[in-house]
């Protein structure tokens, strides 16, 4: 029996290789040089690697644009427009987070290199999720992503909450992983494969009479994903973890996990289980309603800004799910557009939080934001813009993101859902506005000035620029999302 090693399209997995390679290099360097690897070097490497990966995505895009979506490594990995764009967003997210973490590591006097190793591998996991064409690969990507994050969440040794968050995250994450893989097992049993293309082919070629097993598997997969994207009622981990994790980690988590999980979610749902869309829609409907409303209203009663943003991101997850509900090209493009625009905003927001958190990363009560914009107009205004963007004010990308998903839902014929989600946004508006108002309140003028380190400042600036520039001129991004989805592998 001869074993033919499947052909490998290296370009497709180049970003993963780059990221893991970077992590490995850094690991080796740390091991060999014994703490001689400076934070600057580690950050530089990470940023270089992520930018290289980002550059790769251009190459990939050209390839996909020219010859269409392809699969490789025995159809385990897919290279399509969707994965390319999602990968691009993730690696950019890493680059930005690394810059924030750099200043944070210096301030907190922690080993920068370790952080970057874990961040690089986690990112690789997220990228894998966007490209995976096999439930097992998705599962592995998920685990690579998660295990790195478990450790990152526990990274802050000075705060008890950090370890608490890590343990909670780990226990629940493991639980969700088990549910997810059980779902994969049942789907395997129902369709005979874990490969998404094969599943899709099978479901297309066969008439399903009693799809119980498939449904059972689908439900478990759905719960697994819903957990990762923090959809209500599977969201409970996220506020605690967001709060406990070191703030730059929270930023990283809020961006790349969302992108990776949604990319995989979409791929499984649309690519593999697309024929059963009508079965999943009611579930999504309920999930979306709960997620938008609960996320928004619980954010309302928070005083801790990190928790507030955790609930806010739950609310956003509800909006992202809207595109999945629609299940159309427009819907997929909309969700992609949403995560594309949301990632830089949320990273920049957590960058501001990192700064305000101060040494020890503990000043996260809303009271610390009183009059911030008075004392430091630029920082305050930047945060205000970021918050308003998350609120969905026009001329920011946040508006077009909401516009895109809602348009998809309305297009798919459920205006009621759009209205409910928007009411969730209206509730969320209250706390974004209250926060903004706090920024401009004029009391407490003698609080200490916050030093804005260059790198973090750069990240905040980029985030604000992204949201405003593309908010005024969303055409290119929208076209990209649209095009990427058209190039979505079947």
């Amino acid at each position, binding site marked *: 029996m001869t074993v033919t090693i499947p052909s490998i399209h290296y370009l497709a997995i180049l970003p993963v290789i780059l990221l893991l390679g970077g992590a490995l290099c850094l690991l080796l360097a740390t091991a060999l040089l014994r703490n001689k690897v400076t934070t600057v070097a580690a950050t530089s490497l990470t940023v270089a690697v992520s930018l290289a990966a980002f550059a790769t995505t251009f190459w990939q895009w050209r390839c996909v644009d020219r010859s269409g979506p392809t699969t490789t490594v025995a159809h385990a990995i897919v290279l399509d427009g969707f994965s390319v764009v999602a990968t691009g967003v993730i690696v950019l997210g890493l680059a930005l987070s690394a810059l924030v973490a750099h200043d944070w590591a210096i301030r907190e006097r922690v080993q920068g290199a370790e952080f970057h190793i874990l961040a690089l591998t986690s990112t690789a996991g997220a990228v894998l999720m966007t490209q995976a064409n096999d439930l097992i690969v998705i*599962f592995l990507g998920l685990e690579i992503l998660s295990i790195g994050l478990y450790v990152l969440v526990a990274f802050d040794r000075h705060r*008890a909450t950090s370890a608490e968050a890590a343990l909670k995250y780990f226990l629940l994450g493991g639980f969700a992983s088990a549910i997810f893989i059980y779902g994969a097992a049942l789907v395997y*049993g129902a369709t005979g494969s874990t490969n998404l293309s094969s599943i899709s082919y099978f479901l297309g070629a066969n008439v399903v009479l009693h799809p119980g097993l498939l449904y059972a598997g689908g439900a478990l997969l759905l719960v697994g994903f819903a957990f990762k994207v923090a959809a209500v009622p599977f969201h409970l981990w996220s506020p605690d973890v967001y709060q406990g994790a070191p703030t730059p980690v929270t930023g990283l988590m809020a961006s790349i996990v969302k992108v990776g999980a949604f990319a995989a979610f979409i791929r499984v749902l649309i690519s593999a289980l697309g024929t059963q869309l009508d079965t999943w829609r009611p579930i999504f409907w309920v999930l979306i309603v709960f997620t938008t409303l609960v996320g928004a209203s619980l954010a309302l009663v928070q005083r801790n800004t990190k928790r507030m943003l955790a609930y806010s991101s739950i609310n956003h997850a509800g909006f992202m799910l809207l595109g999945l509900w629609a299940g159309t090209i427009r819907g997929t493009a909309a969700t992609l557009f949403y995560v594309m625009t949301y990632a830089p905003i949320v990273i920049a927001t957590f960058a501001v939080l990192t700064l305000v958190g101060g040494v020890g990363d503990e000043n996260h009560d809303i009271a610390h934001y009183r009059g911030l914009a008075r004392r430091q107009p630029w920082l305050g205004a930047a945060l205000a813009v970021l918050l308003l963007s998350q609120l969905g004010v026009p001329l920011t990308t946040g508006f077009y993101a909401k516009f895109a998903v809602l348009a998809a839902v309305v297009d798919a014929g459920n205006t009621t859902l759009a209205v409910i989600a928007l009411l969730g946004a209206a509730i969320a508006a209250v706390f974004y506005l209250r926060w903004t108002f706090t920024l401009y309140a004029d009391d407490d003028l003698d609080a200490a000035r916050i030093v804005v380190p260059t790198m973090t400042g750069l990240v905040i600036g980029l985030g604000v620029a992204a949201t405003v520039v593309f908010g005024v001129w969303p055409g290119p991004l929208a076209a990209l999302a649209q095009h990427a989805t058209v190039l979505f592998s079947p």
Partner: protein
Amino acid sequence: MNVPAAWYLVLAALLFGVGAFGLLTKRSALIMFMCVELMLNAVNLTFVTFARTLSDVGGQATVFFVMVVAAAEVTVGLGIVVAVFRRRSSTSVDELSEMKG
């Protein structure tokens, strides 16, 4: 002739359920890990059973990866438990409820 696959599937489902129940009720983080292991074993059993019904070795191969994941999880998980224990001298998860609301 072997017993029908369904028997094993039901057995796996029960094992999964017991694991889940344990996770929901135990307070020791270590035992909760063990419950996760029970659930993963249920999954493995399911995979193997389906491999048999489908006559497909893919199901068995998958079990491999699940085992690796289980191992990796345990490694990190125990690391976290150790880290938490150092601070609190307890592995009870109920004591870890500082963050809430």
